């Protein structure tokens, strides 16, 4: 299999760590070679966080070059736009959870908030397929798994199926939390 590069981003605190770890483990359960890396550091303080995952092919570095991710997953609308502009490959896919955590400039009244149309427009310009996910969740901390669920159902990562994602979450979450998240993963 040719290598499949994924770029993920969000805001510190949104649980991008679980998202990327789940994707990595799902790929592994699917029998694919995989590596990845998260940016940590100041991550949990509401700054931008990113994560790279590379599936299949020879493992070189976990870092992905700009403009070459076939799949971009973003947990927030502003970051979805930023991520697509920086990393999405032409012909690739952007899937994002449509919530808005306004960046400082917007809250200070110095910039406009990013709209869903802005993201769509950018995707058209970049020749990137555009998907927004929005659904009511029992807990906002599950937005990451809601995004994973959509990626699984749409089959966005070649060779990785729902059962692999389920196994990945089973590796990562304990008892009740697991049950609640599996519901989000497999439910509507």
């Amino acid at each position: 299999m040719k290598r499949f590069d994924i770029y993920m981003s969000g805001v510190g605190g949104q649980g991008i760590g679980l998202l990327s770890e789940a994707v990595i483990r799902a790929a592994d359960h699917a029998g694919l070679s995989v590596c990845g890396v998260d940016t940590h550091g100041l991550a949990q303080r509401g700054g931008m966080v990113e994560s790279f995952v590379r599936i299949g092919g020879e493992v070189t570095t976990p870092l992905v070059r700009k403009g070459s991710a076939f799949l971009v997953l973003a947990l927030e609308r502003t970051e979805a736009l930023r991520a697509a502009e920086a990393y999405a490959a032409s012909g690739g896919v952007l899937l994002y959870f449509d919530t808005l955590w306004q960046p400082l400039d917007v809250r200070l009244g110095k910039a406009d908030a990013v709209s869903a149309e802005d993201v769509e427009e950018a995707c058209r310009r970049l020749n990137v397929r555009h998907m927004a996910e929005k659904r009511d969740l029992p807990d906002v901390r599950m937005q990451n798994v809601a995004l994973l669920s959509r990626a699984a159902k749409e089959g966005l990562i070649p060779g990785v199926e729902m059962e692999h994602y389920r196994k990945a979450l089973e590796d990562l979450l304990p008892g009740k939390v697991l049950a609640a998240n599996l519901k989000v993963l497999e439910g509507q």
Partner: protein
Amino acid sequence: MKNLGEMLLRTEPFSEIVLGNTALARAMIESGTEVVTSYPGSPTPEIASALLSVPGEKRPFYFQFSTNEKVATEVACGASLNGHPSCVFFKSVGLNVAADSFVQLSLLELEGGLVAVLGDDPGANSSQNEQDNRHFARMAYIPVLEPSSPSEAYRYYLEAMALSRRQKMPVILRMTTHVCHGKEKVAFGAWKGGTVSTESRFDTSGGPMVPLTAAALEMKRRSLARLSLAGCEMDSPAFCEVRKGTDSSRGVITAGLPFRSLLDVLEDSDRTPDILKLGAVYPLPEKAVEEFLRTHGQVKVLEELDDVLEKDIKALAFDRGIRVSITGKTDDDDRIGEFTPDKVAEVLAKTWPDMVPLRGAKRQPSLAPRPPQMCPGCGHRSAFHAIRQALAKEDITVADIGCHTLGFLPPYEMGEVLLSMGHSTGTGAGLSLFNRSRKVVSFIGDSTFFHAGLPGVVNAVFNNHNLTLIVMENGTTAMTGHQDHPGAGRNANGPSEAIPVRGVLEGLGVKSIREVDAYSQAKLIELVKEAMAEEGFSVVIARHPCMLKYTREQQRNPDYVRKSVEVNQETCDRLHVCVESFGCPSFQRDEDGTVTVSRELCIGDGSCIQTCPVKAIGLRKENRGGETA
């Protein structure tokens, strides 16, 4: 759920997807490392989380977070002198703190062996600089291994510890941020089990290890001899890998993550050079390098940060009379930033433009960056919002390291200069000299206070400095993931004596001390004004528990109900104090100026309620009646 602690103790070989940092924890256990010390700092704290995932009674090692990197080094050194295989780890700039003891290590007979794991941070992802710690290795006569992936980190640690024990000398394992945080499947070996030995092997039959007078020179001689021995051992195919390319007139010498970036970049190229990848970077593996130089007409040294390898390689070529053209850094830009694949493509294209097809137009997002900020409900925000009102415009504020450093960003702009951990009282004291027109206020967090803040405080008392120190006390080492500090009443192994910040200040002779909860803004303003009006050294302690830690703990409680505030749109006068000046990220602003509160972000602590001049903020109806934090 997979249990990390159990995994780390498996006796059979196994493979698992792990972080580079976790791979190191397993390597420590497999190699029989008995004593491990650290001070928390990115990119290394996950080594500690992995080690601490093993339940206390099952740990085949002793671990501690020490008060700072110097003490951590000394504890590991002492343990090694007594025969325990030991490891100390910390972040890049931690080595500056440790340096006074660190540079002496190679002079001693480290009976048990000692590996220092350094988390360098090219790109300054979470540090105040991107210093290249290979320079320290040269000064301290300590050999350096540098892995490029989690699998290599695991293997090199085992090798480093073996070498260290054989030669009774320290060995550095130099990690970088994205090797620490890289994840891949690592094949681990067997572990034969074991416990910490209780035998005391401290041995001075060769004379006291006191490097004074003539002994210092003798000890240095031994240390140099060991260094060259280690250099010879490391000059082996185990640490020097050659990869053939399609164009063998050209060669690249590289190491660490830049090697991986290079492989990635060359995937696009049909004319690829031969590559010599060095796992041992100090001392230079001369045999391997010489052979590579002799068999290539042009060699590019591709190294992140400074030109350490380049200088050594050029010197070697000169000394041995090798006719080869060597290019290293071509400009200052080549010394700055992490060597990601994109950066390596740029760097390589400057020397060999034909080799790397540069990708079309640069992809530069149009959006303003999203800087990190303090969490919703953070006590530091409340404190900064208040303190700003107590200061005159021309007053000087000095930042220190911790979550509160983020106060230097808008809208607070509290903190105008930063050097290092614990510097703020000293730097503030200097700023106050001959300064009658502008008051000086320094900030410090509680973990940093214990780490390196005390000498500055002692100096301020000793030399009668005229400034106000504000201790932002949140009860934890928040920035690096909430590790306990000496004031917490708990260490990595269980309960311990809590050392109170106030008690320490009093003991050091500080006469003027005021304390207040950081949420009590009016009181805080008053106390800061009072303290600043005094002549001499004054301290204000602005205390509030870290709300991220607190909220996470609350969320574990099954009865936890998430609260939030709301803005009463009838009362709201659109003064925007909450969103622009207090700046909790929960406040969202519509294009028409309406302010709402994000329920996803708000934790309902209510510290914002007092900031609204028209009292438009209040707890949501369904949350009223309960107590707040």
